[in-house]
């Protein structure tokens, strides 16, 4: 059980003007599954490499269980890592791959054998032990790579996009397996991915990074429901949140924003009272596809739910539901509709806007407007 603190980590590569990491602060609790997510080039892999000690930091400190490990060699940090390319030693068989780290650390042979067998049982790779990595499938290589990390029983596990080389089906299977493994072993895991679905499904907490800066740190639910800024809101969720430029108006029942469809039809959407101070000003309305759906009797009475009729521009059936695009205030807005009641593109459809979970952003700072 180990706790990891990242304190204002800064990293500048020699000869590069801009900082790659601009002061990252994250506390990772013992047994926590933390996911670093962000677009390519956001610094997530660099951050992971600095934790592993494969790259040095320019400033700040990395503290593991109260001990500053910032300047230690990778081998002294008690950290194991699973790589995107698996990085199995091609000339060694599976057993030797898993045992390599233990042999280097000069453990007694009996102990090594016992540990390798334990890991092999855990990952169900006992029948592969004498094969070379080249003779394994992608999923099996992935397991061996995890086995190699597990064998040393390190304090922290690092996963660097471990699933991105697998095909879609296997990726979902391995995702479940990693989650099970974490629940069983209760290890501290830092996991890098650019796949926000992976982040949502696996993480205890998600750290969203962009341009070397931490955008938001929170549980998947927090990040999804209350994104700190436009970037996080747009990055998390698939299909992503739609952003509509609107003006806040005072109405007889409270506050509302007006949206205009592509056919000129107007609709006033109710907004919460905390936008009081924004009355008369423009804000950005963030609405997720599931907040625009076909009318539902049970929701109709809520004061924050309203209905309107708009022209559907595009439909994309996904199986369980149909994604439809309508245009509001000259912006494409994604709606998640019931597949049982199909709508054709070009037709008008009755839509229900559930405004209880929508979010608003300050167009200047792009930060979310918080309820007071």
């Amino acid at each position: 059980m180990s706790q990891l603190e990242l304190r204002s980590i800064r990293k500048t590569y020699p000869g590069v003007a801009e900082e790659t990491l601009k002061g990252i602060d994250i506390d990772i609790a013992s047994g926590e599954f933390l996911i670093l997510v962000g677009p390519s080039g956001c610094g997530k892999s660099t951050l992971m490499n600095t934790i592993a000690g494969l790259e040095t930091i320019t400033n700040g400190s990395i503290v593991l269980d109260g001990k500053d490990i910032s300047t230690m060699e990778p081998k002294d940090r008690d950290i194991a890592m699973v790589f995107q390319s698996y990085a199995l030693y091609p000339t060694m068989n599976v057993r030797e791959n898993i045992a390599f780290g233990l042999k280097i650390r000069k453990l007694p042979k009996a102990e090594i054998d016992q540990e390798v067998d334990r890991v092999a049982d855990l990952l169900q790779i006992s029948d592969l032990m004498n094969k070379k990595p080249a003779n394994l499938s992608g999923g099996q290589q992935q397991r061996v790579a995890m086995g190699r990390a597990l064998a040393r029983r390190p304090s922290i596990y690092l996963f660097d996009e471990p699933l991105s080389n697998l095909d879609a089906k296997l990726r979902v299977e391995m995702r479940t397996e990693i989650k099970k493994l974490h629940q069983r072993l209760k290890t501290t895991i830092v996991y890098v991915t650019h796949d926000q679905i992976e982040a949502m499904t696996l993480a205890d907490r998600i750290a969203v990074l962009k341009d070397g800066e931490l955008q938001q740190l929170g549980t998947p639910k927090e990040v999804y429901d209350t994104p700190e800024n436009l970037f996080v809101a747009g990055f998390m969720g698939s299909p992503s949140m739609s952003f509509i430029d609107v003006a806040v108006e005072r109405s007889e029942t409270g506050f509302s924003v007006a949206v205009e469809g592509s056919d000129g039809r107007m609709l006033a959407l109710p907004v919460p009272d905390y936008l009081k101070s924004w009355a008369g000003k423009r804000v950005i309305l963030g609405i997720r596809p599931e907040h625009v759906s076909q009318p539902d009797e049970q929701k109709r009475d809520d004061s924050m739910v309203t209905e309107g009729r708009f022209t559907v521009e595009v439909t994309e059936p996904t199986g369980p539901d149909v994604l439809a695009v309508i245009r509001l205030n000259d912006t494409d807005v994604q709606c998640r509709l019931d597949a049982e009641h199909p709508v054709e593109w070009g037709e008008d459809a009755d839509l229900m806007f559930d405004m209880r979970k929508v979010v608003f952003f300050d167009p200047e700072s792009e930060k979310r407007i918080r309820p007071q």
Partner: protein
Amino acid sequence: MTDVVRTGFRPSRVAIYGLLLLAALVYLIPLFIMLVTSFKTPMDIRTGNLMALPTDWTTAGWTKAWSEACTGVQCEGIRGYFWNSFKMTVPAVLISTLLGAFNGYVLSKWKFKGSDLFFGMLLFGCFVPFQVVLLPMAATLGKLGLANTTAGLVLVHVIYGVAFTTLFFRNYYVAIPDALIKAARLDGAGFFTIFFRILLPMSTPIFMVSLIWQFTQIWNDFLFGVVFASGDSQPITVALNNLVNTSTGVKEYNVDMAAAMIAALPTLVVYIVAGKYFIRGLTAGSVKG
């Protein structure tokens, strides 16, 4: 079935194979002449046809070349020089290959400031003509006390070969993913452990390329041998030259040919034994696996 038969006898195919066969024959003729001549008696050579098979098969030419022929004033055959060449070639090949592997490892996986420039400059070594280094090298060997010794020749060949072997290994190791090195570092392996336990076992194909290349270069070298070695430490290429140029009485072509064959045999053997790795190593990396 009929398809196979038809394509097998298409005129264009016949023409191609015919031409290839002809080319192969042309290249084999000198070898053939050398071989048959080496087994002939001097009488046979003088009276018979160049291309004809020996009327009396005899190994006299071979035994004379090996142990009795005169190379200058001495008449002990090329036996001693053959072993000289081995004593020079084997250490020079091994040392230059190991050094190249090590250089390649550092230049691809442990880059330092200016390492690319360093590598670029090292590559110039591949283009420096032998003649350019003769005088400075002679002076250096003299100062080191290695003039006219086998050790001196080994040193010269190692220095000359390192540019090539480094190039081979560096380009081979560049294609190996860095994640492998990172994984090994996290597993606790250090600089040398990674080299000896992870990278070297993966290097068989490029090792073979380096071994064949260096062996051929060093074994066949004449210029360094004739300049930096004298008398007892001369390599076989120099001895062969002396043997052929020593004229006492009648020219013994059978002995000359046998001596030339003996001098060429080791490189032939190396090609036959390690040839398949040579092709594999040269094409490694061209197909992403």
